[in-house]
């Protein structure tokens, strides 16, 4: 009972946040609602017993990744998004597809006879056990992901640093200039 109540509590926050993310027109609001979603997801994780995952979810996702988003929004001073009619396909084909797919999945999930019920805190994600798994069984993937992170950092630095900051002066003006010309030729829908 308590389990169901808590689940519904966090679940409603999740869904509400997700829907709010779609509804809001200003990216910062979307970001905040996403943060809410992640925080309440941490609650769901706690219900499932994955406390370590929950903590990391808060620290990494809500605490770091989303901060990056917020910083970017502040940096680019992103305003309200403009309602451009860019793609009919996305609306006419994509949305129905998503809806049908979601309905099908929900139907299957709800009509599955052998779907077992789980108690609160079903699987205790003790940090030490997880550490054992992570550093014994999944050592290679762990190292690979660390390399991935390193590469991602370097890539981010190279990408985000201003062209003239990198020692490629000839590269600094050409790219944006010609793209601006392309834009000027009215290639973009208004």
């Amino acid at each position, binding site marked *: 009972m308590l389990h169901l109540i808590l689940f519904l509590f966090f679940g409603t926050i999740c869904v509400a946040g997700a829907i709010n993310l779609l509804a809001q027109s200003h990216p910062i609001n979307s970001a*905040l609602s996403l943060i809410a979603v992640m925080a309440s997801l941490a609650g769901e994780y706690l219900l499932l017993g994955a*406390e370590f995952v929950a903590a*990391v979810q*808060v620290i990494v996702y809500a*605490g770091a990744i989303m*901060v990056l988003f*917020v*910083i970017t929004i*502040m940096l680019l001073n992103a305003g309200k998004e403009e309602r451009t009619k860019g793609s009919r396909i996305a609306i006419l084909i994509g949305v129905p597809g998503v809806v049908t797919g979601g309905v099908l999945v929900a139907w299957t999930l709800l009509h599955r006879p052998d779907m077992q019920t789980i108690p609160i805190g079903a699987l205790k994600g003790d*940090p030490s056990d997880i550490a054992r798994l992570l550093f014994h069984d999944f050592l290679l993937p762990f190292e690979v992901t660390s390399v991935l992170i390193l590469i991602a950092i370097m890539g981010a630095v190279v990408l985000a640093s201003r062209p003239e900051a990198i020692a490629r002066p000839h590269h600094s003006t050409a790219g944006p200039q010609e793209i601006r010309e392309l834009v000027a030729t009215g290639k973009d829908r208004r």
Partner: protein
Amino acid sequence: MSITTFVIISIIKSVVVLGVLLTAVAYSVWLERKVSAHIQNRWGPTRVGPFGLLQPLADGVKFIFKEDLTQPHVYKPLYIAAPIISLVFAITSISVIPFGNWVDIGPWGTYLQITDLNIGLLVVLGITSMGVYGVALAGWSSNNKYSLLGGLRASAQMISYEVSLGLSLVGVLIVTGSLSLRDIVDAQRHMHWNIFIQPVAFFIYLISAYAETNRTPFDLPEAESELVAGYHTEYSAMKFAMFFMAEYANMVTVACLATLLFFGGWLGPVLGPPILQMILPVVWFCLKVFFFMFLYVWVRWTLPRFRYDQLMAFGWKVLLPLAVANIVVTALIVAWRA
């Protein structure tokens, strides 16, 4: 114990802790003013009450009765939400801090701690990491270039130093082998304080903590000389007070964490009758925390402010490698011991 008693005791504990924390926050402000005055060879607040001990009350009254200005060009929802966010997260993080040992109150007994999670440390880190949103949103929502710069600086600085802070804690975790703050404290019995075992980690933690709380020499977000008042330029009255309290509450939290992780928490010489034995640990704990608070103030009025690029360079090029090296060395030693 039954669920009802559990709830009742939890509520009592929460109320007590909250009151204590807010008082501590208020008087840490008084402490700061006194110390800074004496450092600058002044008297500081003396009028209100003996030694100006009632000054915090006066400040509070003043804050409450000030006019609450809200500029027309701000983005209102976040402008209002920002200080609340900061204060809430700042205060919440105290909930897992143990400040005493087991106590028996009549038939019942409890730990002097609102709740004991075996991932308490992570919870503290998580909540403090959430605290950054208050500053960032405040800076952004108040549509003011100084505020925006302050907010950007704050968030960037917090993220950067959070990394080295977390890494510095990893050393401690390797030594103690638990994420529960209580276990960490228990692991430091017989004067095996982590300050002796992990001195490097301690100093990294201290410096990062100052940066996390935007205290001098890392108070770039609110650098008066450059950015009027940084992210809370546009705030006044109670909202401003909330930021203020949030800052000092964070200081308290960080001080408590330092005490627990490196200075053996409430551990200390315990003697005398049982009641005294129940009180003494709390006393030790408060003393250690007070020492850290004093250190905060001391440092603030001693060191000059970093330049922003120096700040970043220091965080990424000095602290981070140092923390990593510390982890490696610690891990090697532990592995060698085992």
